[in-house]
């Protein structure tokens, strides 16, 4: 915020809104954060969407009462800034940009909490070299205008390289770690099953008491209080009860999570790449063929699982990718680049100044998880991969 003040002068109102927005922007996350959102998407549960939940809590909940002490419209202004609604000022960049406070914080926090030694960034130097620039924004082929955001000065190119590389490396090593993703897959199946059973009136099969927060949420998923009552500890506490469930999936998967008996991972993309491009030439044709094979393998695995559907899933597929720059869901443009101010004053993409960054490709994962004991399904997986590569 000091950088904003130095460049733009003081605007106490917007500064307070930005600080509050940075503090509360993730308040709506459910248990196990993004894994719970996966459950919500599969079942159409609006309040499992952390953005929706955060918005409601900030505008109307207990939190809103506190925020409103700052002024009658303060809570709505905070919620608007998080959603990028309303007039965009530089203060929005503190909350949402390539150098927003969230990213600069979680990169360091997640590194510390996981004990990782890589992905260190020179925060002091980055902040010392943050500048302000107006970058164009648009919708598809049409330009809307420009927005002010953070850019970096020419002396911080190496620090920015390390920042991009660090963030990029956190994905394969931490956020997309095969064990983490495998646990999230088991968690999602477990939660989907709980909600489905309760909603169809089969609470006795679940094994949770009537007043359990998961039961209340499943029955009233649109009520803010039932969603708010869910957190990590509620799920952890439910696992011993679910182990005694008469439903095979709940009994098995709760045991897997509680006792870390996770599914085993087969890295489809690595296997396919090894067969199609063993010397990793990354030739365009080879990359296209690998991508095509991976998607087709995932589709065939999912179709096999559907056709052989039993009480408990025998395989769980996983597919994700991460670009070197964090991308939004809208039209791609300069706000989704790291913009460097050159000595001549022009703004250019860091990729144009950094061979390291320009050489980065999209990180993609294509995996399938299965029970260690289920050797038959491993044969099926191998046959599908081999059949597709041919």
């Amino acid at each position, binding site marked *: 915020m000091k950088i904003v003040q130095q460049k733009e002068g003081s605007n106490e109102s917007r500064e307070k809104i930005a600080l509050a927005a940075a503090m509360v922007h993730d308040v709506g996350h459910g248990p196990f954060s993004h894994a719970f959102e996966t459950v919500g*998407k599969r079942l*159409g549960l*609006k309040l499992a*969407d952390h*953005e*929706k939940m955060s918005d409601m809590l900030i505008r109307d909940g207990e939190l809103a009462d506190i925020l409103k002490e700052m002024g009658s419209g303060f809570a709505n202004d905070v919620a*608007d800034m998080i*959603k*990028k*609604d*309303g*007039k*965009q000022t530089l203060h929005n960049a503190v909350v949402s940009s390539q150098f927003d406070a969230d990213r600069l914080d979680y990169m360091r926090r997640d590194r510390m909490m996981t004990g990782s030694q890589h992905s260190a960034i020179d925060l002091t130097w980055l902040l010392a070299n943050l500048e302000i620039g107006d*970058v*164009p*924004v*648009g*919708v*598809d*082929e*049409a*330009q*809307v*205008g420009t*927005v002010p955001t953070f850019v970096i000065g020419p002396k911080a190119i190496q620090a920015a390289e390390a920042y991009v590389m660090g963030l990029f490396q956190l994905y394969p090593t931490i956020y997309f770690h095969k064990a983490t993703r495998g646990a999230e897959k088991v968690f999602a199946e477990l939660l989907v099953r709980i909600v489905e059973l309760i909603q169809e009136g089969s609470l006795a099969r679940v094994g949770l008491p009537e007043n359990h927060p998961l039961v209340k949420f499943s029955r009233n998923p649109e009520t803010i209080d039932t969603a708010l009552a869910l957190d990590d500890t509620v799920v952890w506490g439910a696992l011993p009860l679910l182990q005694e469930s008469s439903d095979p999936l709940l009994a098995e998967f709760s045991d897997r999570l509680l006792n870390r008996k996770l599914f085993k991972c087969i890295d489809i993309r690595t296997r396919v790449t090894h067969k199609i491009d063993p010397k990793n030439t990354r030739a365009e044709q080879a990359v296209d063929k690998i*991508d*095509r094979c*991976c*998607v*087709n393998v*995932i*589709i065939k695995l*999912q*179709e096999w699982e*559907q056709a052989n559907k039993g009480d408990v899933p025998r395989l769980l597929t996983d597919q994700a990718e991460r670009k070197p720059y964090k991308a*939004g*869901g*809208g*039209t*791609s*443009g*300069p706000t989704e680049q790291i913009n460097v101010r050159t000595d001549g004053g022009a703004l250019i993409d860091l990729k144009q100044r950094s061979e390291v960054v320009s050489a980065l490709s999209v990180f993609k994962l294509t995996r399938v998880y299965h029970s260690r004991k289920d050797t038959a399904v491993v044969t099926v997986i191998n046959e599908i991969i081999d059949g597709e590569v041919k």
Partner: protein
Amino acid sequence: MSSFLIDEVTGIVRDAGGSVVGRTRLQKVAYLLTVTGLENNFQFSYKHYGPFSEQLASSAHLASLIGKLRERQDQTAWGGTYSTYTVDGADVIDHSSVRVRLASEAVKADSIELELAATAVFLFFDGYANPWEETARRKFEKSTPQRLANAQALLNKLKQIDVPKPLPQI
């Protein structure tokens, strides 16, 4: 059946005439088809760029990877990139079907105005009494008087099509 909606996303592009310029256009055409009861495979939520379906976005991406949908990326004059989606088979679509009429009318619209119109519809169904006012407030930079007027005119044109679930009278 897989969780990817490949045929569904290619079906939208086909019914829009076989070509959709821009990811935003694809999203808003799909949303308008959904809200009028002509498509029921995608869930939409509000983002600052209007109604958005993550499943639609990922299905389009995967469809292009396996060659069911062609996605070409071009540079814009303003420094961004935009995608053009094309599929084969648009020559045999039934131009009298309401789905084709709505999709092919919406896809011709300016993408900013289409986004404003789709957002106003979304906000109406989200309970806003004056969705145009709320759209203008939220999308401050995009909501010039001319664009809002054009977005309203676009919606009025789309309302002429006799769809299963009528567009709101806003």
